[in-house]
Every structure is written in structure tokens, then in C-alpha cells.
């Protein structure tokens, strides 16, 4: 499942390969098929769009695709851990809007310096996520319900704080976070890539990360193995809470204002990308690499559809069909 696990395992000295390794190879290939397939599909789509839609293959357009995908991708890293852990978080859209509005209110209305306001927003987002996770972990209320509560309440709170009007943030330097570039690469993309590296390491190489897989695979077995199941459940929701708030700051920087209507439906873009990337909704399975491919594939598809001139209504239909197809293929591949 993990990139390095399989390759390292076979190179252990003193344990020559034996007959069972044949099964191991087949198994390893199967574990990879879904990522390889998604990569192949993404590459084919890329080639097709490059040939048939000239504006697609331009630096400006590709950077735009990446920039838009960053707002989905950053949260998708955390969402992968949440789904692997057997939970779900449907609050990102409103949490992003709330984060942006809160930042604008703290800065423009209350006059707090931006860095302090930003830290406050991140803290708030993390605590709300931890709250949703803790209610799951200690009171056994499903995260679908606890995050549905956040989904409803945070959009309302954002509208309440802003009267449903954009609140401008005066500081133009701040907009660099949303619109600026580092060596030509949009800043949100830099955050997305850094986040990928960090969360890949967490999921594959830390005992915390492996505990998430254990809890999602069989929580009772995890508990009997001494893993703090409640802590894990609380923490993963805290992570998506943090990442949603962080994305809220980036979106506010991109728009130059806190906007209660921002990121409408973002949660489903995020969940769709993670699912297309091969993560199981029932927990225990999924990789960061798969999610990254899922994020890029969907961003590429959306961009292509816009460039071809497909109307938004038809876009939604096509997107739905593509997601369903991807999941059906995943399920078929995983089956023996």
C-alpha cells in the first residue's frame, strides 16, 4: 500500500525470496493498478486535450489548473486520513468561508494585525474539528452528523458575521498568498506540494499515520493492540479543521476579502478527489499518492470541459459520471 514498504520489504538481507513471493508480486501489482490506471487516464486526457484544445497546453492555463486544484488538494490530504480512519468530514466548504470571513472581521473590523488574526483563524478551525472528532470518539455520534452540524452552522455564522456581504481586507501584500508566485509557481501550489510531502510522510512513516490505518481497518483490533482509538479519531478531524481554515485564509487572500459565499460545494470536490484516488469510504485503505492523482485528474477534466465550451450543467453531469466510473473501476480492480 505504501510506496516504500513493498520495495524495502523484498530487499531485507538474509531472507531470500521464496515461492510465496509470486503471490506477493501479484498482490503488489494489484495494489498499484489503481494508481497506475489513474495516472494513465490522466495522461491520456492530457494528451487528448493538448491536441484538440490548443489553449489547454499553455503555461498560463496549466498554472491556473494547478492553482485551482490547490484549494481542493490541501484539504484532500487531510480528508484522505479522515476517510482511511473510517470517518468523514463534510464541513470543508463552509469552514473555508467561515475562516475567510473570520479573518476579515478580526483584521478589518477589529483591527487585529493579520498574522495574529490568521493564527486565531487556524486555532479556531482546528478546535472546531477537534470538537467534531471528540464527539465522535467519546459520545459515539457519527462524524457525518457532527460535521453536518458544522456544515450548517459555519455557513450561517459566516453570513451572520458579514451580513452576507464581502468584507475587504486592505493589506495588498497579503494577497500574495492567493495570487502570488514563487519562481513562477503559484503560492497555493507551493503549499499544496509541501502539504503532500508532509502528509505522505505522516501516513506512511509515522506511528500516528499507521494507527489511522489500523483504526479504520478494525478499530477493536487497534484498541486491543494499545492504540488510542479515541485520540486518533479526534486528531484526524482536527487536521481537516486546520486545513479548511488554512485554505480559508488562502481563498480570502485570492479574493482580497472574506466572503461568506466562498467555496460553495468544496467538500464534495474534496471527497470526490479522494474517492477517485482509490481511498475506501469504509476505512482502512487509501494513499496520499492516489489522492494527488485524483485531485489532478478532476482539475484537468474540469478545465478541459470549460475550454471545450461545455455548459456548467453538462459539466456537472459529466463529472458525476466520471467519478462513478472511477470508483466502479477501483472496486473491480480490488476484487479478486
Amino acid at each position, binding site marked *: *500500500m505504501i510506496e516504500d514498504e513493498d520495495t524495502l520489504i523484498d530487499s531485507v538481507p538474509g531472507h531470500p525470496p521464496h515461492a510465496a513471493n509470486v503471490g*506477493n508480486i501479484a498482490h503488489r501489482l494489484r495494489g498499484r493498478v489503481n494508481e497506475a490506471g489513474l495516472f494513465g487516464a490522466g495522461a491520456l486526457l492530457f494528451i487528448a486535450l493538448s491536441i484538440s484544445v490548443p489553449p489547454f497546453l499553455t503555461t498560463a492555463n496549466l498554472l491556473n489548473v494547478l492553482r485551482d486544484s490547490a484549494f481542493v488538494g490541501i484539504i484532500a490530504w487531510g480528508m484522505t486520513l479522515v476517510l482511511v480512519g473510517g470517518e468523514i468530514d463534510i464541513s470543508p466548504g463552509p469552514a473555508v468561508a467561515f475562516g475567510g470571513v473570520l479573518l476579515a472581521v478580526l483584521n478589518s473590523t477589529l483591527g487585529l494585525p493579520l498574522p495574529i488574526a490568521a493564527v486565531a483563524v487556524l486555532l479556531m478551525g482546528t478546535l472546531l474539528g477537534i470538537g467534531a472528532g471528540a464527539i465522535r470518539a467519546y459520545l459515539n455520534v457519527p462524524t457525518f452528523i457532527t460535521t453536518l452540524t458544522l456544515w450548517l452552522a459555519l455557513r450561517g455564522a459566516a453570513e451572520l458575521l458579514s451580513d452576507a456581504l464581502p468584507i475587504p481586507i486592505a493589506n495588498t501584500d497579503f494577497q500574495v498568498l492567493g495570487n502570488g508566485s514563487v519562481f513562477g509557481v503559484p503560492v497555493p501550489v507551493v503549499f499544496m506540494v509541501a502539504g503532500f510531502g508532509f502528509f505522505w510522510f505522516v501516513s506512511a512513516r509515522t506511528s500516528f499515520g*499507521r494507527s489511522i490505518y*489500523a483504526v479504520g481497518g478494525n478499530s477493536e483490533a*487497534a484498541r*486491543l493492540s*494499545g492504540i488510542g482509538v479515541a485520540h486518533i479519531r479526534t486528531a484526524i478531524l482536527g487536521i481537516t479543521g486546520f486545513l479548511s481554515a488554512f485554505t480559508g485564509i488562502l481563498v480570502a487572500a485570492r479574493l482580497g476579502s472574506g466572503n461568506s459565499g466562498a467555496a460553495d460545494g468544496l467538500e464534495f470536490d474534496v471527497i470526490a478527489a479522494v474517492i477517485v484516488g482509490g481511498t475506501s469510504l469504509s476505512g482502512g485503505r487509501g494513499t496520499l499518492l492516489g489522492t494527488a492523482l485524483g485531485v489532478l485528474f478532476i482539475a484537468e477534466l474540469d478545465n478541459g470541459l470549460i475550454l471545450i465550451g461545455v455548459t456548467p450543467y453538462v459539466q456537472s453531469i459529466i463529472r458525476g459520471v466520471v467519478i462513478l466510473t472511477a470508483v466502479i473501476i477501483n472496486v473491480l480492480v480490488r476484487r479478486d
Partner: protein
Amino acid sequence: MAGTGEPILLARSVTKRYPGVTALDAVTFGVSAGEVRALVGMNGAGKSTLIRVLSGAERPDEGHVLVNGVRADMTKPDDATRRGIVTVFQELAIIPTLSVAENVVLGRWPRRGILRSVDWRAVRAVALRAIEELEQTIDVGVDAGTLSLAGRQIVEIARAISRQARVLILDEPTSSLSITEVEALHRLVRRLRDQGVAVIYVSHRLDELQGIADTVTIMRDGLIVKTLPIADAPIERIAQLMMGQEISLVTQARESKPTAIERGTPLLVVEHLRMPPKLEDISFAVAAGEVIGIAGVLGSGRTELLRCLAGDLRPVSGRVSIDGVAQGAGSVQGRIAAGVALAPEDRRRDGLVPILSVGENLVLASFGLVAPRGVISPRLSARLSRASIDRLGIKIASGREEVRTLSGGNQQKVVIGKWLNGRTRVLLLDEPTRGIDVHAKTQIFRIVRALANDGISVLFVSEELAELPEVCDRILVLRRGRITAEVEPHSTTAAALLNMASGVAAPRTERSS
């Protein structure tokens, strides 16, 4: 070996109450280093609760646990593991989506470097070493979910070994292992004992205790009845102490056995069934009211044979007919309609819906009867489940109890009861006595005989070969997917069956058909 020095692990006057029951009543129990202590008792005697208390999975209401004479207040399993007390629980604690290697090191991944990142090389090495100590060969790279029940059990035992236990608690470790795996486990237990590890060994298989335990503690009704050196405790004595006043010996189960079976037109006929590599050219016939034992070791194809007959697996070729009517390629629904029902090996996973009530489970396979027009009739439903509860002697206060709260024996009765709707003609029982106590076993045997008297044909698979001559009219020996012999129950013993089934120095008895 018993009682050498101070107990390394001691429960002192431990009491644990659950709503309505006192599971442990001021129990004092200790083990010393280098001792293998067998812990036996019927279901509900308090063994599991005692183990849960000793392993930190449950807190006692009164009394304490002492480790090396020091009071240890353990609130979670990790507290016990840290003190060197490692438990292999009967419920398989395996993460099916993770690799075998990772399952072995679960909760304590080897780590390296300043980032303390998981060292996958070491994960693999630790897992391989533990599995080698068990003399097993399991590919540690595959997902644990792909392993058989026995394979999963081995992974769990390997996990315990890799944690370098000072006290090792094994809860029914052999219930799903084959004979050779059991022997390897026993060798390992002896080796650990010689290294000074204290082992608590819970088992329903009284016949294995003589070879492995130094001492035996017998529990009944939340109390410790007696602790004896194993030399002073022959099986009959242990069984008697376990059951108290209740006299019910396994050998009485056959009282209802008919002396002569009328072998008229066979009810179930299987011809040249093939499903390589598991089954090769299987042919046999079963008369109505006949109980056929299948003697096969793990991996012999016994489970696959039953699943084939139940329509769950599709054979490559061959014919199955019921009452002279050839059956289609096989679907579970089709076979049920033809009267073939399976009580699967893993009853909690495949046989029951644990969170539904006893009554709901009992009508699960009979919606056609209790819901004639698609709407369930509470009256018909209650009547059918009541009939099964009475017929099988399921001990419950009401049909509304959730199945998961029942003992193993009662759960097994519910699995069988599900099929007693008047339509079932062939009952396939896969390990119906696994993990249930002697008393419940006797009841299952009686039920099987009673069903046979009512004209139902039964195929009976059991790892405990000694059970087959007790309950069956004929025994087919299944070895590596082939039926290699047919035996009359009165002319055989468990040892002879084992020889034939495992093929160890067995004269190859060809069938006389």
C-alpha cells in the same frame, strides 16, 4: 513446575459484576514464571472476564491485579502490554487491510532516525522472526485480510511473541488451527516456559491439556473450583469439576441414533464434483435422515465442499442433484429453494446479524413464510421463532435479545434454528462445535440427531475428529480435495481418522463403491 516462587501475575479477590450477573466473585488467581497454567470452564464460567481483567481490557469492581507483587491498576490493554502481559484474544484482533508484517508490529512499529519514522525493513524482519519461531511460512507482505482464520490466528500469536511477553495469555489459541499448527504452537509454548515465561492457556479442548499444561484451574459460575497439577487431573475429573452437578457426557449423544438406516432413494447425490485445486472428483450420496461426517484437516477442501453444495462456490464440473432433480450451476438462493442450508464456519461473521434480535435472526431465511405478501406478519414471525427457540432449547429471556449477547453455544443454535422452517432438507454444518463448551456440544449433537430423525440429512464437518463417530452414521475422509475413504463410525477412532485425514503413515484405504 507449578508454584515455583512468587506469582508473577496475581489477581487478588477480584470481583466483576455485569447487569444481572456476577461474572467473577472474589476470585484469586496467580501464575508463576515458567509455569503453563490451563484455565478451563464452561461458557459463562468467568474465564473470559478473568482474562480481560488480567490483560487490562476490563477493570475489576473490587480487588486488584498485582504484577511481581506490585499493585497494577490497568485501565487499557496497553497498560498490561507495558508490564509484559500479552494476550491473544479469542476475537481475532487483526486489521484486514494492513499487511501481515504490519499486523505483527501493530501499535509498536519499529522506528529509526531523528524523525522516528517507521522502519519498514525492521517491521518485516521482526514479523519474519516471530513467524519463524512459530515454524510457519506466511508471506508477510500480503494483506492479513486474505489469510484464513488459522492464518490470522498465527499472525496474532506472532504479535504476542514479538512483544517478548513475561506473561502470555492465550485465549482458545487452537480453536481454528490445524493439527500441525497446534503442535508447533505447543512446542513454542514449552520453549517459552523454559525461558521463564508464565503462560495462561484457555481451552475448550480438554484432550490437549495433558500434553501442554503443568497445572489446571477449573472455573464455574464465576468462582474457582480447584487448581490441580495436571498429573492429578484426567479429562473425566476436569469435565466433572467443570460441570458440577450436571452429568452429561458426550458419549450419551447417540442415544437417539437409529440402528439401521433405510437407504432408499438418496436425497442428495454428488457426482464428479471438481473445483481445482481445492476439490477433485468428489462423488457421494446421502439418504434422507442420514448424518454424514466429513473428516478432513484444515486445507483438505472441507469448507469448500460445503460452500459448493450451498451454491456459494461454483464447481468447474460435476453434478449435484436433490431428490433426483439435477441442480443448476449454483446460486445460494437456488440451493436454499431446493432445501440446502449452510451453517458457516465463522458464525459471527457469516451466519448471524449480531446486532439484530434472536427473533429477527431466526426468520432471516424465511421471509417467504412470515411475509406472504412482502409485509412481515408479527404473528407468523413470532410463531416461527418461538418454535425454533423451543425446539433447540435456546436459553434466553425473550426473542428480543440481541444475538451478540448470547454465548457461543446459543449463537450456534440460532444459526441452525434459522433453517428450521420446514423447508430445509439438507443441512450443512461447518464446525458447529467450534469454541463452545462441552455441555453445549452435547446439546448440538442431540439437535443433529433429532433433525436426522425428522428426515433432514446432515453433513457434519468438525476439526475435532473425535466428535464424528459420536454423531455420524457414516464418515467420509477428505484429503487434499479427494474422498479417500469411507468409514463406519463404530469401527473407527479419532486417532485412526486423523491418520487417514492427514495421511501420516496411513494405509490408503480406497473406497469400496
